């Protein structure tokens, strides 16, 4: 789209070749987690708590063990007792004790669906029948689901070991307030009191699910000598290895995790649920054991994104310059301490220059499944509140909502909420591109309205290992430790081909298992194209250097007398001057010129930059039914450099689609009994294709100076602005300001017909 700042001529970067894993995936040959089978494999099943909160008085497994075909039964007592240790594996950190107790409850069941026992049997039917023979004696306890209810005096406290982190002095009583994060500066109250215009409001959101198509599944095989293999799909097989090893208190190198293709994760597969349980069952039975969740189990027992209650106050002077922002929110942690609040605090108001700010986030424990990362974890909720309030403020001031944002938009050098200066960010560029886009000035039909919202996500870098090796015929293999979720094999092949200046098809990228490549962090935090890409470029550069060195040796000239030119080494001096040697020619002789040619880059990528997006949404609201139709949607995003534009656009469209679903219809619905009432895709209403218009992705390229090709993360940003963009569009269409998600037809109808 827009021209990069420094116009570089690329051969491959920015092209759209077919992904190397494409044929397998569209023909159904790709092996996803539930497809994998091992010889002699047993079928596992998990018994889950029917109660939202209960003490487990006893578990009698004798009858289940006696059922013919049952080979092993496990409970929480089969997992080792661990010391508290916070592990950082991906988006967010978790205490290993919590992860263990989430895999199999110990002492208490903390939510409906909490795993309490597991069996392995010779058929899935026997395994399921055996579950019915396990007798669990529960003492039901009072439960709490709501945020403010969980913090109220007298609320049932989930853990007597949790004393609110982040408050000084440490509280003297345990509570459901797991963690408090605060940032800010200046005099918020004073600035609000003297502001020319202020807005305030309370916004609420229900927890939502990541909605990946592939349910969690794994096969584990643990041998008597202590060595084990796990086959699973995840966002990071190294995280699976480290977490599983830690839960089982065994050496990491004793576990080899082979990544299978992943059918979606969106943050929800950055943790483990099944692997330690399958391992224990395998050890007890001496056979490989498969555990796979049903869709219902996925909904009842895996991480939703937290719901929230958010109070926002904004103040501006008469020209629309923001003078103060006060944002205070509660996020659901669910059964164990989660950590979206920190990201929520740093994602709330950093896209604007504001002198007086206070942002406070609190993680709240309650009897729901433990919250887990979901695409820009913690950002969409608070952004919904802030960007709705911005819209209201624009209305009050009589300023165009894009102009209000442009007037206040943060740029390079401006302080973030933390006080640190922003790097080369592209918010202003996105706002300008949105304003210039024909969508912004297109006419609207009856009952239609247009909304806009801006948002951002910090992105990440971190550890990645890449091995680039040259086959005897000169073709190149790029092996990474990063699961390919959004087309990263193609992007890695493009970057390596760019470095080596060879055809794209000469480079093949694979995802290697934990025994075949060095440690790599999860595919999450929008880090893979940036960090694993940086390692790919570094390793490819080293391969290029090795090829030059070999060619020089073959010609008998000093290494500085050769040069890499158009995908081959050219000789600059001596008898061979003017000759070239291709990678094939060099590699074909490599066994006699010093051995195979390969290079590993293991690095912790620094210099990542956040991504910014601005979304424009047109809605049409049926005044008689409250039904909202998304008529047109444009998502503008600073993508740094689009390595493979198709996959960048795909990320933008997918994120926007998920955000629209969150805005309109997705929500966990609980009954009075504390049980989830919509544990399936029929009543957990993600959008279907016909609910959405073509989402136009507009890529603005403001390259990241710290990456060899200018990459910024792109995957998470696009889920941040849609919630407010849709709400603002509904406001524009109807005059009603909806502050509670989801904006389902009955809610919209109630807002339009306050008399009923």
């Amino acid at each position, binding site marked *: 789209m827009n021209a990069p700042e420094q116009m570089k001529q690329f051969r491959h970067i920015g092209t759209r070749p077919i992904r190397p894993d494409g044929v397998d995936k569209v023909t159904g040959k790709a092996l996803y987690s539930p497809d994998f089978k091992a010889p002699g494999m047993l079928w596992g099943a998990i018994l889950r708590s029917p109660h939202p909160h209960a003490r487990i008085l006893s578990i009698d497994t004798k009858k289940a063990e006696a059922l013919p075909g049952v080979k092993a039964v496990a409970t929480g007592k089969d997992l080792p007792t661990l010391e508290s240790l916070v592990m950082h594996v991906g988006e967010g950190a978790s205490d290993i004790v919590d992860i263990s107790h989430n895999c199999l409850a110990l002492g208490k069941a903390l939510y409906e669906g909490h795993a309490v026992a597991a069996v392995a049997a010779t058929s899935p039917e026997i395994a399921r029948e055996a579950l019915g023979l396990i007798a669990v004696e529960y003492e039901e306890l009072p439960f709490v689901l709501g945020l403010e209810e969980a913090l109220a005096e007298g609320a049932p406290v989930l853990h007597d070991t949790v004393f609110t982190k982040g408050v000084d002095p440490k509280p003297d009583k345990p509570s459901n307030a797991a963690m408090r994060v605060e940032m800010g500066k200046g005099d918020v109250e004073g600035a609000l009191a003297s502001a020319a215009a202020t807005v305030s409001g309370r916004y609420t959101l229900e927890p939502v699910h990541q909605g990946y198509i592939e349910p969690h599944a794994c096969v584990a095989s643990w041998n008597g000598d202590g060595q084990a293999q796990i086959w699973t799909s995840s966002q990071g097989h190294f995280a699976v290895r480290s977490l599983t090893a830690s839960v089982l208190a065994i050496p990491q190198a004793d576990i080899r995790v082979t990544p299978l293709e992943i059918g979606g994760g969106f943050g929800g597969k950055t943790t483990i649920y099944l692997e330690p349980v399958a391992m224990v069952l395998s050890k007890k039975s001496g056979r490989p054991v498969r555990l796979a969740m049903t869709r219902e189990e996925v909904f009842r027992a895996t991480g939703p994104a937290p719901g929230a209650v958010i109070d926002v106050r904004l103040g501006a002077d008469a020209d629309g310059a923001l003078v103060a922002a006060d944002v205070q929110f509660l996020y659901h942690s669910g059964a164990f301490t989660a950590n979206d609040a920190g990201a929520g605090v740093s994602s709330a108001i950093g896209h604007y220059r504001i002198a007086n700010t206070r942002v406070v986030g609190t993680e709240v424990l309650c009897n729901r499944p433990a919250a887990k990362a979901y695409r820009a974890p913690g950002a969409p909720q608070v952004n919904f509140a802030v960007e709705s309030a911005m819209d209201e403020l624009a209305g009050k001031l009589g300023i165009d909502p894009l102009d209000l944002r442009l007037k206040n938009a943060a740029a390079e050098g401006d302080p973030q909420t933390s006080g640190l200066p922003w790097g080369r960010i592209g918010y202003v560029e996105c706002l300008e591109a949105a304003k210039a886009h024909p969508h912004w000035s297109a006419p609207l039909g009856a009952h239609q309205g247009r909304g806009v919202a801006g948002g951002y996500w910090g992105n990440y870098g971190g550890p990645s290992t890449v091995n680039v090796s040259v086959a005897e015929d000169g073709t190149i293999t790029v092996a990474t430790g990063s699961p390919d979720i959004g087309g990263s094999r193609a992007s890695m092949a493009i970057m390596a081909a760019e470095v080596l200046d060879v055809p794209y098809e000469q480079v093949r990228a694979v995802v290697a298992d934990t025994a075949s490549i060095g440690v790599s962090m999860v595919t999450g935090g929008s880090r893979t194209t940036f960090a694993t890409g940086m390692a790919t470029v570094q390793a490819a550069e080293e391969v290029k250097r090795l090829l030059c060195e070999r060619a020089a040796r073959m010609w008998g000239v000093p290494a500085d007398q050769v040069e890499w030119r158009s995908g081959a080494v050219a000789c600059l001096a001596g008898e061979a001057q003017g000759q070239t040697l291709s990678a094939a020619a060099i590699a074909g002789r490599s066994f006699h010129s010093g051995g195979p040619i390969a290079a590993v880059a293991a690095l912790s990528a620094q210099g990542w930059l956040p991504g910014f997006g601005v979304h424009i949404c047109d809605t049409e609201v049926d005044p008689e*039914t409250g039904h909202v139709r998304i008529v047109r949607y444009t998502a503008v995003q600073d993508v740094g450099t689009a390595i493979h534009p198709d996959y960048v656009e795909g990320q933008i469209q997918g994120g926007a689609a998920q955000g629209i679903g969150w805005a309109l219809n997705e929500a966990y619905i609980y009954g009075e009994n504390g049980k989830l009432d919509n544990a399936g895709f029929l009543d957990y*209403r993600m959008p279907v294709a016909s609910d959405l218009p073509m989402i136009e992705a507009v890529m603005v390229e403001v390259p990241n100076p710290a990456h060899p090709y200018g990459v910024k993360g792109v995957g998470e940003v696009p889920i941040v602005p849609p919630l407010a963009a849709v709400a603002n569009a509904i406001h524009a269409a109807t005059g009603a300001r909806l502050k509670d998600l989801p904006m389902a037809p009955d809610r919209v109808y109630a807002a339009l017909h306050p008399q009923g």
Partner: protein
Amino acid sequence: MSSTVYHAPGTVEDAVALLSADPTARPLGGGTDLIVQMRSGRLSPGAVIDLKRIEGMSGVRRVGDAFAIGAATPCTALKANAGLAAAWPGVVEAANLIGSVQVRNRATMAGNLCNASPAADSVPALVAAGAVCVIAGPSGLREAPVEAIPVSPGKTSLAPGEFVVEIRLPPRPAGGGDAYLRATPRTEMDIAVVGAGVSLVLDGEGTCTAARVALGAVGPTVVLVEEAGAALVGTKLGDDALAALSQAVQAASHPIDDKRGTVSYRKAMAGVLARRAALIAASRAGAKA
């Protein structure tokens, strides 16, 4: 372990015999309800009697100007029958709101009816159209109006050994038109929060001479609202008549509060959808009158 036996009889008599032999046996049409319920553990019949191999069970037959729809006819086949689609567009559209293309390639109207969900989409349209079921059983064939089949959520009036053989739609009356509308949060793959079917007849002047209005998801079974039909008869569907229709429909709605909608929202939507469906039916009637 409980197990389910699968039978695929070739004749109606064999099917009746198999159904009579095991009171837990279930007829199988497209299986888009039955198999889902079996997989989830909600239902474990001793036998499944597949109706699709029975001669004549699949397809639409013309009987003079009337239509006989075999019980195993998938919804997509209804759309493909031009005569049926022209005569009863509301019924055909209702059946083709069910699920997705993949679901409709299997799903049948008989299954939709006999599953006895209050939210079944084709049922209000069939009731409005005055459709009748032909039922086979141990004592031979009998007929019953569609609205007599469901008695409560998941329960039908079919006696042991009985199953629906075909659904009959009368000839389209001169000046007749029908329509079905439903409210769902999503555009497809969703269950009706409320459904409304209207079938009416207009005379040469545009005056309504007959009307049937049926609602889904506002009570334990489909509701045929006679007052709503009466509100239209003798009128030209002016504002007053439509307001009276909406009022009658709301008065006849006794929905529940659940995850799919509140009582007040469902009642309000019943009124809106019945009015809109009446206008579509009238425009169809007018077009062909």
